[in-house]
C-alpha cells in the first residue's frame, strides 16, 4: 500500500506525501511566501510586482506568519511605502526583511521587531539591485556592480555587527549577473563566498579576492548551492541544467537539456537533486532532475512555494503542504512489492502474531540469523514515517522481534520511541512543526525547545523536557518572563510563578524579576528577587529597581565586598547625600568600605561629611591635613586654611598623639610663611616645599648664617641636629676655614667623627687629618687612619694603648712591608 505512492526516478525511489491540509486563506497567485527550513514557519505578503484587482479584502497589505501547517501565528499591517528588496528566514526562526533604502529589519514569529540596522550610506546611494539572505548573513549587489556582505546578523544583536565590501567585479557585466552564496561553514576560507556568472565566465568571489572557475560557458540565469555545500546547480540561457562542484573540481558536470525558453525557480531537494518550477498560470510544472539521466515531471493544478530541507523539499500550495524526499533504504526493504528482506518478514510476522496465526512462528524461524538486523531496520524505518499508525506497526514489529533475542540492547528502541513521541507532538496541526527524523537529529532537542519557547508553547516545551529528563530552567524562565507581561494581579501572579519555579533547585529568578520590573511591576520584581539564590545576580536588579536598602543588605550578606562597592556607587549616584549616608551608616561593613573607597578616589568632601557625622576629630584632622598636603605648595593661603582646620579638629581629640600632631602642623604653618618671606627677600631661590632641616641647610649654603640661626631658634632645633646640618653644608661649600672655626666654637655635641666623615665625603684627606686627632674613642680613630691609609699613625696609637688586637687589625689592612715590620716590632714589645 505504502509503495503505491512511490515514484522511481532513475535508480532511486522518491515519495511526495501530504503532511498537512492547509487551513490558511492564502492565494499564492497573488502572494509571496517564504518558508523557513527545518519545518519552520512561513511568511506571506502580497506580491507588489503582480497586478491584482483592487477590492475591499486586499486593500491593506499584511505581513502574515503561519506555521508550516497553515495556522496563523501573527500578522501586521505593512507600510506600502517601504519597498521590500528581499525577505527570508535566518536561523532561530527570525525573519529578515531588507528594504530598498538599505535598512534591515528583523522580526520574530509574532511580527515583533527584534532589531534593525543599516547597510550603510554607500549601499543606499548605490541602490540595491539584488539581495540574498542566508542563515546568518546578507549579501547585496548594488547598481554600481559592487557586492557588500553582512558576515553575521547575530553580531548586530550584540552590537558588533559590520558591513564589509567585497572585491570589485573583474569585468563589467553586460547583463544582470546571476549569483549564489556559499555559506562560511562550507567554504574553504571559512568566510562568505559568492559564485557569480559574468559574461559567460563563472567566478568565485570571497572577502579577499576573485578567481575564475569556469570560462566560455553559456550565460547562467539561475544558480543555487545544495544544502551540503558541495554542489552548485546552474540553469543557462539555452535551457540546460548543470550540476557543478563547489570546490572547483568539476570536470564533467551532470547536465540536462530541458529546452525550456524561460528560466525556472531552482530549489534543491536535500542534496540529491534539483527541482525546477515553472510558474505558469495555465500549466504549472515541477520538473525534478537527479544525477545521470534521472528525471521526473509533475503536473500541478495550482501555484506552489518550495522550501529546501536538508533531506528533501517542502512543497506548499494553497491547500496542501507536501514533503518530497528520497525513500530510505530500510523503508524500501520493508515495503517494496515482492520484497523478501528479513525486516519485511518480521513486519508480516507481527501481523500474523496479532491475528493469532501460527505462521508468525514460521516466519520468525526463517529469519532467525538475521533477526537483530531486522529489528534494527524496523526501528529505523519507523523513524522515517510521519504516519502514527505505521510508526506504531513498525515499532510493534521491532518489539515483537527483540523478544526472541537474547542480550539485545534496547537503547536504540527506547531512543526512537522517545524521539517519535516528541516529533509526533510537534507535528500536530496545532503546533505545526513537521520535522523529519533527520532534521530533528540535525538541530538537536535544545534548538527544538528554544523554538517552542520562542513561539510561547511553554507547556509543550516543559512536558518534553520532563519526558526526556532534561533541564527545564530555560522553559520556566521564559514562561515566567512572558507571564509577568499579562494582566494577572501582582500577588496572585507572584504565587503562581514562585510555586512553579520553587521546585527547581538553583533556578535563577533574576531575569524574571528584571522582566517584571520592565513591565512596570516593581513590587512583584522585588518579591521574586528574594528567591534568587545568587547574590551577584540579586543585587544589580535591586539597584535598577531603586531598592537600595535591600540591595545593600544582600550585598553585605553575600560577603562579596565588590558587590558592596557596586551598591555604594549606585546609591551615591542616585540618592540625595543625606539619605545615602543615613542608609550607609546603618551598616558598619558598608561604612568601612565606603571610607576605603573614598580614600582610593581622594574624595575628601565626602570623607569629611562622614567623619563629621561620626564625630571623629582625629580622622577629620587627618583629612584636612591630607587636603592641605595635596594642594600645591605655592597656594599658601589655601594650605594655611586647611592646616588651621586640621589643628582645630586635632585639638578636639582626646588623644595625646593628636595634640603633638597639631603642634607639628602649627610649626609647619610658621615654616611655610617664613619660607615665603625668604623667597621674597632672597631673589631667584626656592624654599617652598622643603623641610625645616633642608631650609637651614640651604640658608647656610647661601651664606646666610644669621637667617639659618633664626630658623633654628624659631623651631628649637636641638644642637645635635643643627651641628650636623652646618657641618654638612660647610663641607659641601668646601669652606674649610669656616668649618675649622665652627669646630672650635665649643666642644662638639656630636663628637668629631662627623667632621672627619664629611671631609672624606668630599675626598679631602688633608682637612680630615686635622680632626682625626680630636676623636676621643680609640677604635673609630684608628679606623679613620686606616681608611685614609695612615697605617703608621694608627699603629702608634694602638701601641700607646698597648692593644694587641688593634695592632692585628691594622696589620691585616696594611700593605706596606716597612710599616708591617714596625708593627711586628710593636707587637713583640707588647708581648714581652
Amino acid at each position, binding site marked *: 500500500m505504502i509503495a503505491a505512492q512511490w515514484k522511481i526516478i532513475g535508480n532511486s525511489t522518491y515519495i511526495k506525501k501530504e503532511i498537512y491540509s492547509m487551513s490558511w486563506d492564502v492565494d499564492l497567485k497573488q502572494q509571496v511566501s517564504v518558508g523557513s527550513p527545518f519545518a519552520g514557519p512561513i511568511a506571506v505578503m502580497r506580491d507588489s510586482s503582480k497586478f491584482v484587482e483592487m477590492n475591499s479584502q486586499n486593500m491593506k497589505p499584511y505581513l502574515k506568519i503561519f506555521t508550516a501547517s497553515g495556522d496563523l501565528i501573527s500578522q501586521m499591517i505593512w507600510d506600502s511605502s517601504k519597498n521590500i528588496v528581499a525577505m527570508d528566514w535566518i536561523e532561530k526562526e527570525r525573519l529578515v526583511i531588507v528594504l530598498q533604502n538599505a535598512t534591515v529589519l528583523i522580526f520574530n514569529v509574532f511580527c515583533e521587531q527584534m532589531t534593525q540596522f543599516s547597510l550603510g550610506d554607500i549601499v543606499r546611494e548605490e541602490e540595491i539591485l539584488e539581495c540574498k539572505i542566508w542563515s546568518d548573513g546578507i549579501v547585496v549587489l548594488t547598481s554600481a556592480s559592487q557586492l557588500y556582505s553582512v558576515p553575521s546578523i547575530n553580531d548586530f544583536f550584540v*552590537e*558588533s555587527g559590520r558591513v564589509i565590501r567585497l572585491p570589485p567585479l573583474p569585468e563589467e557585466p553586460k547583463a544582470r549577473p546571476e549569483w549564489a552564496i556559499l555559506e562560511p561553514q562550507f567554504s574553504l576560507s571559512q568566510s562568505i563566498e559568492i559564485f557569480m556568472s559574468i559574461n559567460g565566465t563563472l567566478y568565485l568571489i570571497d572577502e*579577499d579576492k576573485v578567481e575564475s572557475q569556469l570560462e566560455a560557458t553559456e550565460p547562467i540565469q539561475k544558480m543555487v548551492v545544495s544544502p551540503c555545500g558541495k554542489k552548485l546547480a546552474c540553469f543557462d540561457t539555452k535551457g540546460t541544467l548543470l550540476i557543478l562542484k563547489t570546490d572547483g573540481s568539476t570536470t564533467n558536470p551532470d547536465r540536462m537539456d530541458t529546452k525550456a525558453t524561460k528560466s525556472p525557480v531552482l530549489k534543491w531537494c536535500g542534496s540529491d537533486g534539483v527541482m525546477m518550477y515553472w510558474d505558469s498560470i495555465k500549466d504549472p510544472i515541477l520538473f525534478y532532475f537527479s544525477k545521470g539521466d534521472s528525471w521526473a515531471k509533475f503536473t500541478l493544478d495550482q501555484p506552489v512555494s518550495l522550501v529546501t530541507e536538508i533531506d528533501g523539499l517542502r512543497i506548499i500550495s494553497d491547500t496542501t503542504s507536501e514533503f518530497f524526499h528520497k525513500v530510505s533504504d530500510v523503508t524500501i526493504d520493508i515495503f517494496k512489492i515482492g520484497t523478501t528482506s528479513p525486516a519485511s518478514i518480521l513486519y508480516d510476522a507481527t501481523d500474523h502474531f496479532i491475528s493469532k496465526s501460527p505462521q508468525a512462528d514460521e516466519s520468525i524461524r526463517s529469519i532467525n540469523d538475521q533477526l537483530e538486523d531486522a529489528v534494527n531496520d524496523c526501528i529505523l524505518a519507523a523513524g522515517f514515517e510521519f504516519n502514527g499508525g505505521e510508526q506504531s506497526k513498525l515499532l510493534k514489529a521491532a518489539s515483537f522481534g527483540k523478544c526472541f533475542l537474547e542480550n539485545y540492547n534496547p537503547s536504540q528502541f527506547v531512543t526512537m520511541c522517545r524521539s517519535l513521541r516528541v516529533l509526533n507532538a510537534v507535528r500536530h496541526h496545532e503546533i505545526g512543526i513537521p520535522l523529519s527524523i533527520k532534521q530533528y537529529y540535525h538541530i538537536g532537542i535544545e534548538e527544538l525547545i528554544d523554538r517552542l519557547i520562542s513561539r510561547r508553547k511553554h507547556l509543550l516545551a516543559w512536558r518534553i523536557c520532563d519526558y526526556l529528563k532534561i533541564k527545564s530552567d530555560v522553559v520556566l524562565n521564559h514562561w515566567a518572563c512572558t507571564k509577568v507581561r499579562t494582566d494577572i494581579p501582582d500577588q496572585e501572579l507572584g504565587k503562581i510563578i514562585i510555586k512553579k519555579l520553587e521546585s527547581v533547585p538553583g533556578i535563577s529568578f533574576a531575569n524574571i524579576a528584571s522582566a517584571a520590573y520592565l513591565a512596570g511591576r516593581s513590587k512583584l520584581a522585588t518579591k521574586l528577587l528574594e528567591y534568587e539564590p545568587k547574590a*551577584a545576580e540579586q*543585587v*544589580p536588579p535591586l539597584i535598577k529597581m531603586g531598592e537600595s536598602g535591600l540591595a545593600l543588605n544582600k550585598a553585605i550578606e553575600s*560577603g*562579596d*565586598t*565588590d*558587590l558592596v*562597592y*557596586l551598591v*555604594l*556607587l*549606585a546609591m551615591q*549616584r542616585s540618592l540625595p547625600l543625606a539619605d545615602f549616608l543615613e542608609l550607609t551608616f546603618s551598616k558598619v561593613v558598608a561604612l*568601612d*568600605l565606603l571610607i*576605603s*573607597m573614598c580614600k*582610593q*578616589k581622594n574624595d575628601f568632601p565626602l570623607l569629611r561629611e562622614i567623619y563629621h557625622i561620626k564625630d571623629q576629630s582625629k580622622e577629620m584632622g*587627618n583629612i584636612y*591635613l*591630607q587636603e592641605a*598636603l595635596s594642594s600645591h605648595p605655592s597656594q599658601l593661603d589655601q594650605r594655611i586654611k586647611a592646616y588651621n582646620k586640621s589643628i582645630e579638629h586635632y585639638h578636639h581629640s582626646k588623644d*595625646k*598623639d593628636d595634640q*603633638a*600632631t597639631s603642634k*607639628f*602642623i602649627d*610649626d*609647619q604653618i610658621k*615654616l611655610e610663611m617664613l619660607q615665603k618671606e625668604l623667597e621674597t627677600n632672597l631673589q631667584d631661590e626656592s624654599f617652598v*616645599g*622643603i*623641610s*625645616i*632641616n*633642608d631650609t637651614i641647610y640651604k640658608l647656610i649654603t647661601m651664606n646666610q648664617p644669621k637667617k639659618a640661626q633664626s630658623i633654628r631658634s624659631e*623651631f628649637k*632645633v*636641638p644642637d*645635635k*641636629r643643627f651641628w*650636623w646640618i652646618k657641618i654638612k653644608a660647610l663641607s659641601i661649600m668646601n669652606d674649610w676655614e669656616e668649618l675649622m672655626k665652627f669646630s672650635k666654637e665649643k666642644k662638639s655635641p*656630636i663628637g668629631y667623627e662627623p667632621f672627619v666623615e664629611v671631609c672624606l665625603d668630599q675626598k679631602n684627606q688633608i682637612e680630615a687629618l686635622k680632626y682625626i686627632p680630636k676623636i676621643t674613642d680609640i677604635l673609630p680613630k684608628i679606623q679613620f687612619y686606616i681608611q685614609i691609609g695612615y697605617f703608621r699613625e694608627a699603629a702608634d696609637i694602638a701601641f700607646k694603648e698597648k692593644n694587641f688586637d688593634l695592632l692585628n687589625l691594622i696589620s691585616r689592612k696594611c700593605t706596606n712591608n716597612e710599616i708591617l715590620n714596625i708593627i711586628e716590632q710593636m707587637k713583640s714589645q707588647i708581648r714581652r
Partner: protein
Amino acid sequence: MNKNNKSFNNEESVSPELTGSVMFDSTDWIKLKTLQLFSIIDSFKISLFLDEQVTLVIDRQISGPFSLIFTLQQLNERGIHNLTYFEDLKVTDKTKSIIFLCRPRLELIQKISQFIQQQKQNSLKYHLIAIPNLDASSNYLLESEGLLDYLKIESYDFGFIPYDNDLFSMEIGDFYSRCFVENDNYQLNSIGKSFIKLQQLYGPFKTIVGKGSKSLIISEHIQQLQTLIPPIEQSKLKTLILIDRTVDLIPLLCTQQTYQGLIDEEIKISNSQSIIIEKDIEIREQVLVSPPTQEPKKFEERVVRIEKEKKKLPLSPFSDLFYQQVKDLSFSSVPTMLYLNAQSISNGMNELKKSNSQLLSLPEIKKLLSKIPDVNKKQQLLELHTEIVQELLKRVNSDDFHQKISIEFEMLFQMSNNFIGSNGNTASSVLDFIENLIIRKKPMYQVLRLLSICCLTVGIKDQKQYENILKSFIHVYGIQEMTTLMRLEKAGLLGNNNNNNNLKFKLSSQLFKNFNLIIDNNENSSSSGKENDNDKLKEYDQVYQGYIPLITRIIEEGQKNKQQGWFNKSLESKLNCIDQPFFIKELQTTSNYDINSFTMVMFVGGVSFAEISSLRTLKKKYGRGSGYDFIFGTTSLINGDNFLKNL
C-alpha cells in the same frame, strides 16, 4: 682518567643540593596560563591577514609578571605589534584595535574612559582584559559613562606566577593594605580560585592548616570549590599551609642577610629576573695644562668628571646554578663559595691544557673540546656574581649596616629575656640610635623599619622621647611624610601601647620563649668573637644571625610529626599566644600521596626572600620526604621598604 673523575667529584661536592633533588615542575602551569590568554586574544577575532595594527596597553604594575610568562614574539604571532603603558597612551595612524590589560583599578578605568571619549571620532576597536576579572564597581563606572558598548571585556587570572623552581607569587602589590588594613576581602576569592586551578593541574591537597583570619577565609573558599577538582590518581600536593602576614611582621622589617635577600634589599631584584647597578664611570679627556713656568705647554690626560652609568645584569634563578647554590646562604659565606667555584673552574681549565699537551686521540680531543663552552659559561656566571658581591660588600662593610644589624638583634634579644629594666634601657638606646639616623638624614624607610620593629617588640615607654623622635622626623623629612606616619600607625606598626588600634600585632615575650626564636646567648657571643667550623655550619642555618622567624618555627614543629604534628595540643597552646584563628582541615580525596608529594606554604599578605630561605633550610636539616619539601606561594614578593610603601 682519574683526574677527570676527581674533577667531576669536586664539582659534585660543590653543589650537593642539586644531586638527586626533585624540583616542582612549573612548566605545565606556564603553558596553561599562556594558552588561556591567547584564547582570549583569539576570541577578539583580530584578523592576521588585514593590515590592522593592534596595540596592547599594559598596566605597569603587572608588566613584570606579564613578561615572565609571555614573550614579544608570541604576541607578534597573534597580531600584537605595539606594546605601551597607560601613561603613554596614544594612537598611530595604523592603529585599528587596542587591548587594555590591567587590574581594574579606579584610576585606570578612568583613564580608559577618558581615552575612549577622546577617540570617539576614530573607528577603533577596544578590548579590555581585566585581571583577574572586572569587578562590579568598575563595570558600573563604565556603564554609567556609556562605554560598555565600545569595550569588549574578558577576564584573565594570572593566578600564581612562578618566580623560582619552588616559588609562586600572585604579585598583588596592594593586597596587605586592602585586605588587612581596610578589611576588604575582595581579593581572597581570587586566591581561592587560583588554588583550585593549581589542584586541577597537580592534584588535590590532603590537608589544609593555617593561622590567621584571612587564611581561614581562603581555606573556606577552597573547601567550597574542591568538588571542581577531578579525581587524580597521584597528587603532587599534599599539605597546604596558609599563614597570614599579621602572624609575624618582624622578619619583614628586619634586614635580610641572605645573598638573594641582600640583593633585593640593597639593589632591588626586578621580577626575579634582573638587577640594575649604578657604576661610577670616569670620563677622561685631553686637557691643556699651562704650567707656571715658561716650559713648553703639554697635553695631559685628566679625569674631568664622573658620570653614573646604569648597568643591567641578568639574574635568573632558573638557569644560574651558582645562584641556586648560594642564594639562600648567609652573605658572609658567599665570597668563600665564589672562591671555591673559581678554583674549580681553574682546575677545569688546567685539565684541558694538560690533556691537550699530551696529544690525545681524536675522540678524546673532541670530548675535551665539548667541555669548553660549559667552562666558559660558568666563568661568565662567576664574573657576574663577583661584580654583584663587590657591590654588596661596599654597603655591607659600612658601619651603618653593622650597627643596624646589631640594633635589630638587640631588640629581638630583649624579647626572650623579659627584664623590665633592660627593656627600658634597650628602648632608650634604640631610640637614640634611631634619632641619630634621622639627624644624619639616612633613608627614610630604613628609619621607619627600625621604629616599627621597636614598637612591635620592646615597645616605647617614654612618650616624650617618642614625640621628640617624631618631631625630628618631620623636621628632617618634611610635613608631607606625616601621612606616611599616619598610615603606619593605622596599620598597627607605630604607636604606643595605649593605642586602641584594632590592628595590634605586638608580639609577646612568651612567644619568643615558646618557640626559641633567639639563639642561645652564649653561642651567639662566641660566634661573634671567633671563627670555627661549628660557627660556619650554623651560619648556613641562620638567615638572620641569631634569630629564627616565628613562622619557620611554627612550620618546623607542625610538620615534625607526620601523624600528630599539627594536631599536637602543645603546638596549639603555643599558638594561642597569637590572637588569631588556627585551623586544621582534612579534605576528602581519593588521590595517593608519597615521598614526591609537596607541601605548599602560602603567605597571605607577602613574604621576603630571606623568610623563604629560612624555610628552605628545614629541608636541608631534615632531608627529603619528611614534610619539608616546600613550594611557596605568596600574594607578593616584598621587602621591608616596599612593604611600608604599599601600605
